[in-house]
């Protein structure tokens, strides 16, 4: 540079190398640093670290609380699942019991019905047999009467009631066997 207007010629253009100013700079820098350190260390840094600490603790507390709530939720969920399982088991038991009861009732009812049916059948058979016997005896007397009457017409005075009866029953039984 040719046009320099040097008022610090003794330093060769660099004020940094003008050592006559060093004492002043060092002194005042030291003073400034000392003042700054006193203020920072005295009140500002403790305040910042206090704020950070508080926040850290608050967040840690919140996280603990969240974890505790989560644990509670998990417990509740487990209890809920257990209750659900118990209820299901109970329901199954009740259903099975009802089923058994119904089955038993059904069995009793059907046994009763069977018995009644058997009784009725037996009764009916007895009556049928009675009717049949009656019919048979009626048929016998009618046949005997008829035979006797026929014999009377053909050969009066010859009819022997007992002989006719025997013959009729023989014939009847022969027909009954044939039937």
């Amino acid at each position, binding site marked *: 540079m040719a046009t320099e207007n040097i008022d610090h010629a003794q330093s060769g253009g660099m004020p940094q190398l003008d050592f006559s100013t060093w004492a002043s700079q060092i002194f005042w820098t030291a003073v400034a640093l000392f003042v700054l350190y006193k203020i920072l260390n005295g009140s500002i840094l403790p305040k910042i670290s206090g704020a950070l600490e508080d926040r*850290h603790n608050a*967040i*840690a507390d919140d996280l603990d609380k969240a*974890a505790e709530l989560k644990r509670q*939720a998990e417990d509740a*969920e487990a209890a809920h699942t257990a209750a659900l399982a118990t209820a*299901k088991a109970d329901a199954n038991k009740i259903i099975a019991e009802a089923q058994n009861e119904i089955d038993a009732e059904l069995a009793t009812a059907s046994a009763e019905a069977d018995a009644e049916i058997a009784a009725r059948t037996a009764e009916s058979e007895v009556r049928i047999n009675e009717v049949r016997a009656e019919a048979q005896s009626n048929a016998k007397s009618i046949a005997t009467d008829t035979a006797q009457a026929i014999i009377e017409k053909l050969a009066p005075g010859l009819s022997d009631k007992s002989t006719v009866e025997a013959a009729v029953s023989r014939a009847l039984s022969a027909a009954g066997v044939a039937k």
Partner: protein
Amino acid sequence: MAAPDGKAGETDRKSLDELGARIDAARQQLDGPKREQTTKYKTLNRAWQMVVELVVSVVVGGCIGYALDWAFGTLPLFLVIFGGFGFAAGIKTILATARGFIDEDDTASP
């Protein structure tokens, strides 16, 4: 009857797990140290830094050598020797600085 209940239980479970993961992540963030990213311009500064270290080391070595020469009247014997030592010291400092950069990059990248 059992199906919707089971489904609801499953989603509850899922959201609980998510909540647990979030709590853990938040806790880790609270306790774990934070890593600052290195700026690109740091690399700009490195070459300059190394040159300064080398030159300063040579000058310091040279000054010690010159002082010894002045004391014993052996100029330029110790000046040369200690200039060499200074050069070696500069190289050593540069290597240490470079290692520091590598460590720095390693810790910053993951």
